[in-house]
């Protein structure tokens, strides 16, 4: 088996284990149990840290987008979603449109 395939197989098993542990530990708990509340806080904090890093300090192809364009995309999406109460899909589309326009304008 090639190295990349073996790594994929083992990683897939590790992912199942992580998910199974979570279900096993918390399956018998109520939603307001402190352990569940802590896990929810860690999950939400992880997600918001992911967004912050993806916008402010991204890697890969996104790093090629200038920071002002990334911020314009985020701001336009949030403005549409929160302030104008547009649906998720429309806000997502407006945010990406703003990102592309800002990138084009900055070139």
């Amino acid at each position, binding site marked *: 088996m090639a190295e990349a395939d073996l790594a994929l197989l083992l990683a897939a098993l590790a992912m199942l284990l992580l998910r199974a542990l*979570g279900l096993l530990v918390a399956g018998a708990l109520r939603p307001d149990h402190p352990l569940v509340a802590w896990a929810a806080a860690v999950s939400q904090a992880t997600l918001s840290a*992911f967004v912050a890093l993806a916008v402010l300090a991204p890697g890969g192809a996104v790093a090629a987008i200038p920071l002002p364009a990334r911020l314009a995309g985020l701001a336009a999406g949030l403005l549409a979603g929160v302030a104008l109460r547009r649906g998720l899909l429309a806000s997502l589309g407006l945010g*990406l449109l703003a990102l592309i326009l800002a990138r084009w304008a900055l070139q």
Partner: protein
Amino acid sequence: MRLPPLAPLRPGALAALGAPAIAMGATFLAFGAAVAAAGRGLGWAMGASLLVYGMAGQLVLLQGGGVAPAVLGATVANARFLPMAMALAPWLGGGARRWLSLPFIAITPWAAAMRVLPGLPAPARLPWFLGFALASWIVAGLATALGHAAAPLLSPPVLAALLFANPLYFALLLAAELRLPAPRRAILAGVLAAPVAFWLPSAWGLLGAGLLGGTLAFLAGLRRGRG
């Protein structure tokens, strides 16, 4: 065993086939293209998308660098699955059927489920999650295959815009959660803790920031509750 009817899965599946499918599809399309660019086959791309099913870990795996570092790095990068499954588990019911959700616990279905499941009657919760999860899992697989095939057609600026759809989508979800005190604390703490990622090895960065921010937010919530 008689197969359960599929109709209860429909509301969740329909909820997935909007913004979540677009945001996820865009990211997995970009991943498929990246796998093709790295010279790996469609089978590997599909395996990573459908079995690992967590983009941070998938990208670590794609970087390679030996079996043990790649597997450990991917596991750490996706370690959020553990707290996410813990936060989700109480909403999926106590029966053995909740194990059907096992392969699908990932950011997008988790985030949608945490918003919707508490407002549903208990018997509708697991079918809603499974419907959402199956639909988004299939979208992820199709998008990966499409990206793998279309890699030569996708220019770097297009790929970058596709990859940005994912954080933007999560930013929109999180913004909607800011009106509740507990999520608001966790979200703000996560943003403030994000720089911790710069001091940690790249695979550990997100986990470190999430653990620190989430734990501080949880402790702040306990104090608030007592006082």
